[in-house]
């Protein structure tokens, strides 16, 4: 335990089988909480979820990203012994993170009433795709469903992809964007409840979390505009192809446009006095973008971004995965720690997207082997059985 970490001394029990709850546990672990993952005899299904690091039988990259720094016990919560063992863990825990479907909770001893009766000081965090209450509480939802139930899915793609492929289906964001929002919201909710000092049930829905981060579309609707992916592109700028990759260019303020004109080399078309007016630029966005695209096609990304930012023009490289982890800025900040797994060279893993001083949060341990921390249960399986039957 690192006493200087924000959540040192906080104990968490996690019964997670999907990304949102597992990510909530991961964020708490990254900040110093002791997180014990309780796995069923068949093990946490995230251990088998692609992408895998080394072929289909190997380690899941997804699980590694979600379970680093956690401990593991294997328990069958369908048995009285298993439920007694998890009760012992919960007796000294501050937070339970659970995503068991509502209908399965009573048989696992994880229903709200039982937990509240036995562990009144516990923060019992439930994270489900559509929450624990309301008409859709029992609904199933994987990443693609909750992203599209939260509103952002229907708004994607925008920009260049929407122009190139106007008739294709709406798009999901890469990876587990929506489920990870649920995890961040869950961790925040658990820490807020813990701050209150009251043991209580906390109900987090992945859909709600995505509706919340989609607040701007709700704001726009109130202002009178129903957003749609085909019409919410920026008038100019956006995703721009260069000689060796893509950049994002976005000028929202006058001085940024002026900087862009300088970056372009002040060609005649850009210095046209009419384009000094923001409304004119917006109206002639397609024409401006055609010029920018012609010019950018011959520019190397790295040099272009450096020159743009020096002129105060907001521009960024669309970094590929290996460029992200090897970026000079990321290396200087130590954004990625080294994850050490048996038989694999060190791999880059970000501990958390925030830090509590100049240094990043430490990566304390790789993901646990199944049942690595069985000793936390206070004895071997036989002892557990005797206690349960006594």
């Amino acid at each position: 335990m690192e006493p200087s970490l924000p959540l040192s001394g906080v104990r968490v029990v996690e019964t997670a089988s999907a990304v949102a709850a597992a990510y909530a546990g991961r964020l708490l672990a990254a900040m110093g909480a002791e997180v014990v993952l309780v796995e069923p005899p068949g093990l946490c299904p995230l251990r088998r979820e692609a992408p895998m690091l080394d072929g289909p039988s190997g380690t899941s990259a997804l699980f590694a990203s979600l379970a680093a720094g956690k401990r593991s016990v294997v328990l069958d919560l369908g048995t009285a012994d298993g439920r007694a063992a998890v009760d012992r863990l919960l007796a000294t825990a501050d937070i339970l993170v659970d995503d068991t479907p509502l209908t399965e909770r009573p048989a696992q001893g994880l229903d709200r009433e039982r937990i509240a009766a036995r562990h009144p000081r516990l923060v019992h965090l439930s994270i489900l795709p559509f929450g624990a209450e309301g008409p859709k509480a029992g609904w199933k939802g994987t990443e693609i469903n909750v992203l599209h139930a939260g509103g952002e899915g229907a708004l994607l793609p925008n920009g260049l992809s929407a122009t190139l492929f106007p008739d294709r289906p709406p798009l999901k964001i890469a990876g587990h964007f929506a489920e990870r929002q649920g995890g961040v919201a869950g961790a925040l909710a658990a820490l807020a409840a813990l701050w209150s000092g009251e043991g209580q049930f906390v109900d987090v829905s992945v859909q709600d979390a995505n509706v919340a981060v989609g607040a701007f579309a709700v704001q726009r609707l109130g202002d009178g505009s129903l957003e749609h992916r085909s019409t919410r592109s920026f008038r100019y700028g956006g995703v721009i192809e260069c000689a060796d990759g893509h950049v994002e260019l976005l000028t929202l303020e006058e001085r940024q446009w002026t900087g862009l004109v300088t970056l372009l080399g002040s060609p005649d078309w850009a210095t046209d006095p009419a384009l000094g007016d923001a409304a004119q630029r917006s109206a002639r966005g397609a024409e401006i973008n055609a010029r920018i695209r012609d010019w950018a096609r011959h520019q190397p990304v790295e040099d272009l971004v450096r020159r743009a930012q020096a002129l105060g023009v907001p521009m960024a490289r669309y970094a590929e995965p290996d460029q992200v982890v090897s970026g000079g800025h990321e290396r200087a900040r130590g954004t990625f720690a080294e994850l050490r797994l048996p038989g694999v060279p060190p791999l880059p893993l970000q501990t958390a997207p925030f830090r509590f001083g100049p240094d990043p949060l430490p990566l304390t341990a790789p993901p646990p082997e199944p049942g690595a921390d069985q000793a936390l249960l206070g004895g071997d399986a036989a002892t557990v059985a005797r206690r349960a039957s006594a």
Partner: protein
Amino acid sequence: MKPLAGVRIADFTVHAAGPFCTHMLSQLGAECIKIESAQRPDIFRKPHTVYGRPGPATFDQVASNKLSVRINLKHPEGVALAKRLVAVSDVAAESFRAGVMERLGLGYEALRAVKPDIVMVSVSSCGQTGPDSHFAGYAPLFGAWGGLGYLTGYRDGPPVEMRHVMDHSVGLNAALATVAALHRRRRTGQGGHVDVAAREVASSLIGEALLATAAGVPIARMGNEDHWRAPHGLYRSRDGDRWISLSVGSDAEWHALTRVMARPDLAADPHFATQPARHAARDALDRLLADWCATQGAEAAVAALQAAGVPAHVSWNTRDIVTDPHLRQRGAIVEVTETGGATRAAVGAPMRFGASDNPSIERGTPELGEHEGYVFGELLGLGTAEQRRLADAAVIH
């Protein structure tokens, strides 16, 4: 009582990401005092050319619930006044470019000098350190830097811009880090400087792809495909621009889907007998599902699929969301009052508490300086004559 009742935030944040952080904390019960000035009002008080808004917003989500004061931070006495406010606060939040608070005389060390256990939260595009820390950025740039934009898109298409969900995701992470820092302060008595870099929020969302790529298993753009699930995608219903999201990850879900489709032949087809087989045959399954969904009403099909145990949902637009009984019941969507008295929908904080009072929006967008009597008078103990002097000197301005 709300969970964060008693926590006070001096809020210097502007634009979207930082204000969303403090807005969430305010919904959870923190008292949030927004600091602006007549010279530098936040963006929602101005016309918005990009979105064609001719005047100030009549309701701004991320400004709601907040108290408003004017402090001219370009004036030495304004800096002193801001420090007095920080001295009676638990949290100081800001979202300027790295270095701006220090140049104003309000850097972490300066704030710590007036409030030794202050939790300072800095939200920026690239963080407080590193060679790019001075870079300007907006949501699409955060997504680009962090790799999320590169990985999002159709297989044969370009990267995709992230929009406001990216900003607000940064804010949600910042809110989490803020409460964690408060827990540390409660335990150790120590405050701290929380550094939230938006580009690192973007990269944190694709951790598995960064790991796999580094391990020699490159991950590319993959549209709506999943690594395991199939069928998996968005399929147009007979309702036109109403698409059904559908995801099958097990034999049980596959068999349930074929029952809803009334296609026992598919259930018996060896090409689709196992999940790996279905994944290998995903293009054929996409065509089958596209054909079937084109004959279905979107909401009815989704209800039937969910009843059978198949993960599905209509790809909802914002109007669907603000009118949904489930989201209304949960307080994920709430009704608020605009300046002028009209009502509209806004988002709630995404969490419900069994014992604490639930998050809520108590008031809409504050007028600039609306709460100076309370903040400068009651909290800081400035008499009316002193407040008048500071106003005349363009400090409260």
